[in-house]
């Protein structure tokens, strides 16, 4: 029972949020079942679940990115910029080097990690050596990253056939299979027409790897030690500078997953502005999971499915506008995150009875 507790309270919060959102929707003149229908479509149809998982995948990576930095006492607002630099590096490799699959895929992933890691490391370096605050540095680096991405798309590998600024298509050998393709091999039809791809498995793997790194390795312990108490770490010969840079390099490298999901798994090209602020939503994902890598899997899925459910709702209703759906989304997240308040109220009540 005690093991289930951390999941129980967010679930209660979710149910309360569901109830309140339904009240709002009914007040707006909508049928009372619409929210349930949209969640039904999200969780119980191949189409909805496929998209929910597809939206969740990048959020796992950015959530992990923010969490690793946070464990080291750093606030990484730069995941958005890091994932763009990772995308540029990946696209550059995947549009220029024609390689066979066993070489191509690891190389492209490595290039993306290098790109993201470099951009993250830059922020870490500035923080560690120059003492500039990482929040400001990462925000500013984001803007530089956007412009560099625009420049690369327009001048390095632009597809001249298309009006929209986007890169050339990546070579065939760099493309990752969709889950629907994989299941078709064994004669099943799952998630058909949705873009959810094998990057999802990478995401789950990464969450466990990060968990292992943080809690079962010496390096991970050092990173956390710096996060807990930099001064004490220094006295114990744990370098604050090195670990700051290391945490930021890992944080940046993790955002490579977003590029892999989008470019190798889905679009097969780099499109300007493809990230729907994944980097920033990652902050909320990590906060909700309290920087626990395994918890991030769940919170990313919550955000991903909410994103899909609100999108579904817009199609089912005349009255739910984009703005209203944002409000509903915010309410849901707010209630799930307020588990502390709820658990406190519950425990107080328990004490009274005793």
């Amino acid at each position, binding site marked *: 029972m005690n093991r289930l507790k951390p999941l129980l309270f967010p679930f209660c919060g979710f149910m309360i949020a569901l109830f309140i959102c339904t009240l709002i929707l009914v007040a707006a003149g909508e049928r009372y079942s619409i929210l349930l229908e949209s969640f039904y479509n999200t969780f119980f149809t191949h189409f909805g679940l496929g998209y929910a998982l597809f939206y969740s995948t990048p959020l796992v990576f950015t959530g992990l990115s923010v969490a690793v930095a946070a464990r080291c006492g750093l606030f990484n607002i730069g995941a958005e910029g890091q994932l763009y630099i990772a995308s540029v590096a990946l696209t550059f490799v995947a549009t220029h080097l024609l390689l066979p699959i066993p070489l191509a895929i690891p190389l492209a992933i490595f290039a993306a990690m290098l790109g993201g890691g470099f951009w993250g490391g830059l922020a870490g370096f500035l923080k560690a050596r120059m003492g500039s605050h990482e929040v400001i540095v990462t925000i500013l680096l984001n803007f530089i990253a956007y412009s560099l991405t625009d420049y690369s798309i327009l001048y390095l590998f632009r597809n001249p056939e298309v009006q929209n600024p986007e890169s050339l298509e990546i070579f065939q050998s760099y493309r990752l299979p969709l889950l629907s393709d994989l299941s078709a091999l064994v004669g099943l039809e799952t998630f058909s027409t949705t873009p959810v791809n094998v990057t999802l498995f990478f995401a789950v793997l990464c969450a466990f790897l990060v968990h292992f790194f943080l809690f079962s390795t010496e390096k991970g312990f050092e990173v956390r030690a710096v996060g807990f108490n930099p001064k004490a770490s220094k006295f114990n010969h744990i370098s604050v500078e090195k670990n700051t840079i290391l945490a930021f390099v890992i944080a940046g490298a993790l955002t490579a997953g977003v590029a892999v999901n989008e470019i190798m798994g889905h*679009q097969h090209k780099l499109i300007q502005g*493809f990230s729907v602020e994944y980097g920033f939503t990652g902050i909320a994902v990590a906060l909700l999971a309290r920087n626990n890598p395994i918890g991030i899997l769940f919170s990313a899925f919550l955000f991903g499915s909410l994103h899909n459910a609100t999108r579904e709702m817009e199609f089912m209703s005349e009255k739910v506008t984009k703005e209203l759906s944002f409000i509903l989304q915010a309410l849901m997240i707010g209630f799930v995150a307020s588990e502390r308040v709820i658990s406190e109220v519950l425990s107080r009540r328990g004490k009274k009875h005793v």
Partner: protein
Amino acid sequence: MRLILVSFLFLSFSLSAKPFKVGLVLDKGGRDDKSFNSAAYNGANDLQKKLGFDLKVVESSDDTALEPSLRTFAQHGYDLVIGIGFIMKTPIEKVAKQFPKTHFLIIDSLVALPNVRSVIFKEQEGSYLVGAIAALASKTKVVGFIGGMDIPLIRRFEMGYKAGILATQPKAQLITNYVGSSTDAWRNPTKGKELALSQISKKADVIFQAAGASGLGVFDAAEEKKVFAIGVDSNQNWVKPGKILTSMVKRVDLAVSTTIEESMKDQFKAGEFSVGLAEGMVDYSLDEHNRKILTPEIEKVANDLKKKIIEKKIIVPDYYETNKK
């Protein structure tokens, strides 16, 4: 037993009387850009009031929402799915392949699939006319052009516009600016206004904007500095009456409504449709809002040129063609 029979009858009736469903996906400009997207929205909406089919309009807040939106429409059994703008090209290509029974319409881009109709407007012809009008109405003989996103489509406007200016005023000077190189360039009225003000400070007194919602900033600048602006896509003369010399009208509304009508009658025709002045799908606009500022002399010249273009005595340079070589 009777109840079952009746309900069965009712069910089969309700199934056979399934309403025709149209899904419309607008780009970032949104339904209230008073220009390109508004034209599409009004075309579908007005026809919906007349014929009463199911119409659902979705605006995309970001570029990644386009494909899921189109796909959700197809998945939910919509009969006709309409994508407004060149940015829909790749998403429609993907989705139309997966749903070969659904009809698609795309504006401003070519998708060669058996269930997609692509409507491409000859923007250069309409731009040529407003270029001629601008040059004739200008006192300083300096005219401006403000494009939204710097892409071949908008360069096509600019090229036609320039040809029209030079045809009537060979010595006139054209100042060109673009709002940006990303899709945000369509909804940045602040920058639109800044660019217009800088052009006005260089003595431009007629400015043609092809910049989506950013163009509304150009109108503000024109009103403030008492110069003329030229609208685009929709007839925008009413937005600032007396300040907007004319509008280069692109009948996106007609393209949308005729496609819906044909699709409803099972007469949907796929393929590429390139339409211009001759089909009445692009034009310059003249109504009570600009009657006083567009003089009859200018009107006469414009109509002459229009006739010559339709009769193919004037061939307006096309950016797409000139850049192919």
